[in-house]
């Protein structure tokens, strides 16, 4: 309980720091810290796979990519001339709506919540005999029971990669092809 409160407080402090700080370099570092705290929080919730992903993607790769963006875009935030009142109201209403939505949710670890009761018999009981004793239920769920889902997710990553290549790439072959075709036209 104490550790949870500590980490959640740190998450809030980090989020406020990211919003307040003008130095984009420091802000990127704070987002890395935020992801790492999020990973710790997931670990407390007994979700090591999610924590693993959060640490690797949130704290690792995204920080790298944002630093790469900073190298192109500069390290200082432009001072804003707009009044912060309207965004503050919008954010406040959205946050209040989200908190209102959590009021209906079951408590953490509630044995009667739909997560625990809706699928019978549960995957946790079935996965051991089904998978011939492979112990990781998460992998079994993602890879076997919901193989289509994971195939779709892989296709999403594939598509995102192709899109980034199409938008951003300026490689040697690309340019020389372009040039040679232009020369051919001339």
């Amino acid at each position: 309980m104490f550790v949870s409160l500590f980490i959640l407080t740190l998450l809030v402090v980090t989020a406020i720091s990211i919003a307040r700080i003008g130095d984009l370099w420091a802000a990127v570092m704070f987002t890395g810290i935020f992801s790492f705290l999020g990973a710790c929080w997931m670990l407390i919730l007994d979700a090591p796979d999610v924590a693993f992903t959060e640490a690797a993607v949130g704290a690792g790769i995204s920080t790298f990519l944002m630093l790469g963006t900073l190298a192109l875009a500069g390290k200082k935030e432009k001072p804003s001339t707009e009044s912060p009142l309207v965004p503050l109201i919008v954010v406040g209403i959205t946050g209040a709506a989200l908190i209102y939505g959590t009021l209906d949710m079951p408590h953490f670890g509630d044995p009667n919540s739909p997560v625990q009761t809706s699928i019978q018999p549960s995957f946790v009981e079935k996965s051991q005999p089904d998978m011939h004793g492979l112990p990781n239920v998460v992998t079994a769920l993602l890879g076997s029971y919901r193989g289509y889902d994971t195939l779709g997710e892989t296709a999403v990553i594939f598509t995102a990669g192709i899109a980034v290549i199409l938008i951003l790439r300026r490689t040697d072959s690309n340019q020389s092809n372009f040039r040679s075709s232009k020369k051919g036209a001339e």
Partner: protein
Amino acid sequence: MDSFPIIRVVSKLIIPYILLFGFYVQFHGDFGPGGGFQAGVILASALILYGLVFGLPAVKAVAPPKLIEKLIALGLLIYAGTGVVTMLAGKAQGTTHNAVANIDHEEVHHDQGRAMANFLDYNALDHHFLPGVLPHGQHLGLFLIEFGVGVTVTSVMTMIFYCFAGRHPETLPANNPAQNREAKS
């Protein structure tokens, strides 16, 4: 980065261990936390670290962009191809035996007489070649698709890094020999 010997030496020391950890997460994902996605990100971060410290040309020599962009598609092909192989293997065996893994047990009984296994039904990958050494059935299927996911994620992340770093004003002329040649001629 030539003027930062500590960074160079330390990253040279830890990059092999990052790679090793990535492969551990990849191939141990069936037993512990992890899997293809996390492993792909870890492997890509090893490559990106190498690129940040030793420069874009160095990492492009290790992982050529032409190879990487083909691996993006190959990973997805491994995944989808595993599904096609399960269909074909089920056809060859003539029955979807040991179909306990299907969630809906009533449907299993309907499927018993069918000559084809479902897409991504790894039970069709059961074999009796070197039992206990080679994984088979569900284990082999999970292994293959996680491998496919790992290949795609590694190459996509590396490719995104190439795209971002390639636009850097300082590194752009250096890694663009075609442009340099043209400028000279």
